């Protein structure tokens, strides 16, 4: 199996090799290696499974088992923007249902669906560890807190223009303090 069949950049392949070096056993590097592929491809295609099987010397079943156990690992291409809204208890108390209903109306899809143009997917997810700042939603590495229908509209408007709006946690990315 050629390493290129998964179309990983040389940099990503180097990172996988470094992870295998750093972790105490080959198999223990499985999750971080999956993250390398996820970060570059957006999901783990069959060729990615082959690559992991070969590099880590584990069975394809083991790779599939891990891929399917963890909700953040995906084996299919994803929508351009997957909006993950917390529907757990604290956010529920603070109005998550209103936010979800608003998103459903604006996007014309139900929770769990993807828009026909593959632009947006809407998912209900469990507690995001932002309960005091709820309702909240996650988009990749960005977390949006204290959501209201107005704030949701602003986020959607920006995404439709292809711009990921500044999130409440983005100060971290800039290495900034408070």
């Amino acid at each position: 199996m050629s390493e290129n069949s998964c179309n990983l950049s040389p940099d990503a392949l180097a990172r996988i090799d470094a992870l295998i070096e750093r972790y105490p056993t080959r198999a223990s590097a499985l999750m971080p290696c999956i993250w390398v592929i996820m970060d570059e491809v957006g999901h783990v295609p069959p060729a990615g499974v082959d690559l992991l099987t070969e590099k880590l010397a584990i069975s394809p079943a083991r790779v599939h088992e891990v891929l399917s156990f963890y909700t953040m690992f995906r084996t299919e291409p994803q929508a351009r923007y997957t909006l993950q809204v917390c529907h757990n208890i604290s956010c529920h108390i603070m109005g998550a249902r209103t936010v979800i209903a608003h998103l459903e109306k604006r996007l014309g899809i139900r929770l769990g669906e993807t828009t026909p143009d593959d632009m947006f997917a809407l998912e209900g997810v469990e507690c995001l560890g932002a309960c005091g700042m709820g309702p909240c939603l996650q988009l990749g590495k960005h977390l949006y807190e204290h959501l209201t229908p107005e704030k949701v509209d602003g986020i959607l408007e920006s995404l439709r223009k292809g711009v990921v709006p500044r999130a409440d946690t983005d100060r971290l990315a800039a290495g900034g303090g408070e």
Partner: protein
Amino acid sequence: MSNSQYNILSSRFDRTDGHKLPVYEADGGYKALKMVLSSMQPAEVRDTVKESGLRGRGGAGFPTGVKWGFVPPDADEVYFFVNADESEPGTFKDRYLLDYDPHGTIEGTIISCFAVGDRLAFIYIRGEFGWLIDRVQAAVDEAYAAGYLGKNILGSGYDLEMIVHKGAGAYICGEETGLINSVEGRKGQPRIKPPFPAVAGFLNKPTIVNNVESVASVPWIINNGPEAYKKFGTEKSCGTKLFSVSGPVKKPGVYEIPLGLPFREFFHDWLGGMVDGEELKAVIVGGSSVPVLPAAEVMNVNLDYESLANAGTMLGSGGMIIIPESCDMVELIQVLMHFYYDESCGQCTPCREGTGWLHKLVKKLRGGEGTAGDLDLLEHVCQGMAGLTICPLSDAAVMPMRSFIDKFRPEFEALIQETAPVAGSSRWPRGEQE
């Protein structure tokens, strides 16, 4: 950001650039590590933490120093895991520690690893905290560059490697043996105990798993001594604890309180009471898995392990959820039962099937199809789930379920129909069904 006059854990939450190494050092950071490596034996560190009375802050409250003592003295390889999975609904305290003061946790981890003889530590951070993982990794890199990590730390001869490991969305990986399996590159399914991880954990070697807040308390205890730590809190609940408060109070957020603080005082003086127009109905004091207390009962408890146990609940993770009068308790328990059903790892029949039954039965009640006997059936299912499984997730679903019925029974009874409507005539508006 900091809401507290106590400063064992939260003193740096307000500090500008407090996450950066030079600022941490200027605040006295890594002083405890220098002292430990230059003048203490591992056993002394373990004894100091044992004497401080520090109890695990991840939920179970097991004394930290005692747990460290379970590692066999002749172990050739030991592993240490910092549990930053933080997935218990209502809990968002560890993210504050790692966000505003990552070096506090890193220093505490290095000292803890030295105490148990570990050479490779993992910080396991839930995958949803993607924005936080880069931050912690940057701090770990700084610590390596400054010689606090790696080979021959500060010339002491002690070596320690540290890996920041990213989870991928599974509540059960917060359970310590699920977490260990996860880092071995497996499904995060818990293991049968015994053997306990301290004896046989990661790669079958002795392994200690501690919550972020537990290890973050360690540098202060080393710097100030166990007696100073015990001045805070009660006789059996020593020190301070972070509570993360969510729900419609005036000032939700993360608070460091001395254990034993009366809830009444915390609620009125610290949280500012309810937002205007809301009345307090109930409180879940320690994360979604602990029994709920109605307003009248919670007003009489103190926030420490013993007082909360006497009141029939638990301190848990300190994830305090404030429930207003306007909330429908049956609807809330449906949200929670959906969560446990979703997160059961499926290994044990009582948990896999039981969480599904609880969720379906509550959903049926809320759908207007409740029939006489449903509440008994719910209790019957709970009986078949509690204390019978590999890990406590099953109990974690039963405890809120039972307490919601016990404390708010009329709300459940109101949904039982004399004659059940025809199936399918759901009263749920579109979009509300899970």
